[in-house]
């Protein structure tokens, strides 16, 4: 077989991550990707904002890693979004804390995420701001343009919208399958699959 066409738009890793060449990943040693995650062009991930104070219970067995951004499987980071670890004063010293995303997390275009934790199966729309240390549980939908205030906790099965964001509805029982991102994963990359007819 002849040589592949000169560089596709994406770098596809062994674990199936598709990272756009035009994405900006700073401090890659502090960014963990779970696999099969799509990172579109113009996405920025601030792995350089790692915590400056070691975790309190690092002595109790946890690996002394310094992950700043951890991303699960089948996440989809849309064009122009930004993942930025939250920071705060801790015992008089400013430090960043890790930002964790679960599996099947969709982050819309132009969205800024500074949460402490995003659960599994979360859909964040476009032009959303997720404030520092917000916690979003599983099966949550954040509508376009929402501003989730810092420290807000959003329980599972919530639909959230507004500025500041408030819970405006519940995900119906039949709506949880729609959070699955496997199919979307296949539609991007260097060999994208056709979408539904």
């Amino acid at each position: 077989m002849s040589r592949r066409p000169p560089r596709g738009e994406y770098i596809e890793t062994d674990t199936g991550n598709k990272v756009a060449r035009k994405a900006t990943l700073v401090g890659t040693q502090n960014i963990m990707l779970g696999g099969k995650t799509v990172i579109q062009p113009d996405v920025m991930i601030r792995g350089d904002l790692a915590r400056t104070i070691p975790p309190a219970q690092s002595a109790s067995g946890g690996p002394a890693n310094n992950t700043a951004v951890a991303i699960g499987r089948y996440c989809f980071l849309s064009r122009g979004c930004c993942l930025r670890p939250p920071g705060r004063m801790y015992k008089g010293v400013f430090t960043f804390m890790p930002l964790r995303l679960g599996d099947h997390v969709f982050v819309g275009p132009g969205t800024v995420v500074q949460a402490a934790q995003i659960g599994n199966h979360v859909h964040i729309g476009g032009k959303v701001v997720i404030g520092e240390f917000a916690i979003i549980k599983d099966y949550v939908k954040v509508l376009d343009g929402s501003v989730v205030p810092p420290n807000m906790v959003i329980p599972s099965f919530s639909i959230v919208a507004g500025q500041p964001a408030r819970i405006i509805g519940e995900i119906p029982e039949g709506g949880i399958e729609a959070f699955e991102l496997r199919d979307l994963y296949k539609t991007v990359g260097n060999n994208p699959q056709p979408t539904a007819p």
Partner: protein
Amino acid sequence: MFGNNRLPAFHPGLTQSRIRDTTTGSGLWFPGLRSPPLPSESDPANDQLPLPITPEDLYDTPMAPFNPYTYIRCPCSELNPYTKRTPDVTAQGLSRAAQDDDDHTFDPRAARSNYSLYPLEYLSFCEDCHQIRCPRCVAEEIVCYYCPNCLFEVPSSNIRSEGSRCTRSCFQCPICIGPLAVNHVETPPDPNQLLSPDHASSSHSGSYVLSCSYCNWSSTEIGIKFDKPNSIHMQLAKLRNGGETRLTAKERKERRKEQASQGGGGGSSTGQGEEDLDTLLDMETQFANLKSFYQNQLSDANGTGKVGGDPSAALGNLGFDAPASLSRIMSLYTGSSSLHDKKSKSRPGTMREALAPSEGLQLASLDESSAITALQDFESTTGLDAYSSTASTTQLQSQAPYLGASPLHGLTRFTSSLRPIPYLLRTKRSKRCPQCRHIISKPESKVTTTRFRIRLIAGNYIPTITIKQLIIPGLTPPPMPNLPPDTIEPLKPAQFVLTFKNPIFESVRVTLATPATTPGRFPAKVTILCPQFEIDSNTDVWEEALKDNNATSSSSQAQNLSSSTGPEGSGPGGRKRAGTLRPGTAGGASLAGEELGPEVGKVWERGRNWTSIVIEVIPASLVQTAKRDGRGPIKEDEDVLEIPMFVRIEWEAEAPEDEIMPGLSSTKGGNKDGGKEKRELAYWCVLGLGRVARTL
């Protein structure tokens, strides 16, 4: 994955029930809300924090992208839906019912339709009744209560005693409803102390405040600080605005007892305090005072019985001053029958009313001068309109009832005196079928798990329908110039591909019917080119799933595990079209000359568990019709082309071991081999195809 990355827009026939997602301009539907959940523009609180109002939010600019939709009608909207089926539930009976439906076409824009149309994901399915169930007709039962902020479960006994709010430290901002955080009031830091961990806690002798990180509101604005960072709810209950502590009812009682034991000639200083206590009654105190006053009255009346001889006693028995009615009312409010003395039942009598603050008398304060002064002061000091210092209706509504508030005319009307809002609890709920009472949805009771014990959703039983406008280059006439994108031209045939995807493990036969012209103000001609077709079964799921995990991403193998938006990814080989084989999606245009248009009576395309067919519509001209019919201008969303469609699906299922349940819409075919039984399900749905252009 969501179509277009947002929830499916829901447009029930009429627009009143539409809830605008101001961020996208598309409708958003959810049960239980009939008014916009988002802050309204007239809300003064939101003038400070304006929402971006884009042109899409305003009427008459159909610029927002339109997502085609399918809403399904729940049978509960039929008149007497249950009695109709109870006597003889057979296929004939059902088809007779369907016949009735055919006779009077379902009008998606009728006022009643608002209440019966649902997106598929909102619908459940009762396996015993074999029928669709919707949020309107299912019976909900609360599985557990929990705080949406701290996610702690609250036992239902606490709900009765403490109310339906979190009693830990979870509060929302009274101004913007953002979450409040407990913060230590920053004192000038002593660098030596801060770094040493053992001093960190001991030096916190200062106080804590609740503060909003969204709008920067802080509880210091109402003069409230807390001694410790936990159990804020309890601390707050004891604090009036301004930081003055409030005696709880118990403490007040004890203090009064003390004074009583000291005798009337006690110290003049405590007498002064008592005076204040009793004239400025807050709600809790007034209630407590009234209650004890009436209790005393009741026991007096019962004990002596001397009021019995009063000539007005016969009438008095009906008034509020009658012991019987009083004890009945009291038991309503106190939730117990402790006041109710059995002996008193037959004893008529009247009692006097409270005469002093200590008995619960609270004189209404009608003097508004302080409020007026406050308004004037606000204007003169800030230069802003005094209106902005008053609390909005939404702000007042979201305030929790506060027992420390002064009753009647003392309620606050200024944002400067709003108190932090303890979070309202949320619930996990199970759902029951309204007819057979079987549970059709039951979440795990643990707050933090998202699993369901039972989850019978309609999407696992009835086909999904996805809609796409059919444009064949070379065949479809080019759109009119200057036509807004995604709009349908009036008076011209437009074709749409409807793709039906089968979720069940048997192949199903689908029969469709629509009225020749849609009901309503702007009738459109409708033709289903292929009203009868089969969809193959959804059997290969596990095989496909395995393939999915093994195949590399570049594999062209057809696969499809779990999607809800529509049939996916059948490779070029798995996809067949009537007439000609369709070239790969990417190269479709190059072979356009050879493409055939849709043919009558033939399916358009089919794949593993899906079949698509073509529907042709000729919309009326909105502008011309509106001019002629004299019913005013085109209303919001009247330009959306909605097609009512009757769907009947039939399949053969494995017969259950036991006899057919009553209410099951199936018949055991006598000549059927080996326990197969015929089943069918029929329902109305409405297809939202797109917006009709407002051209002539």
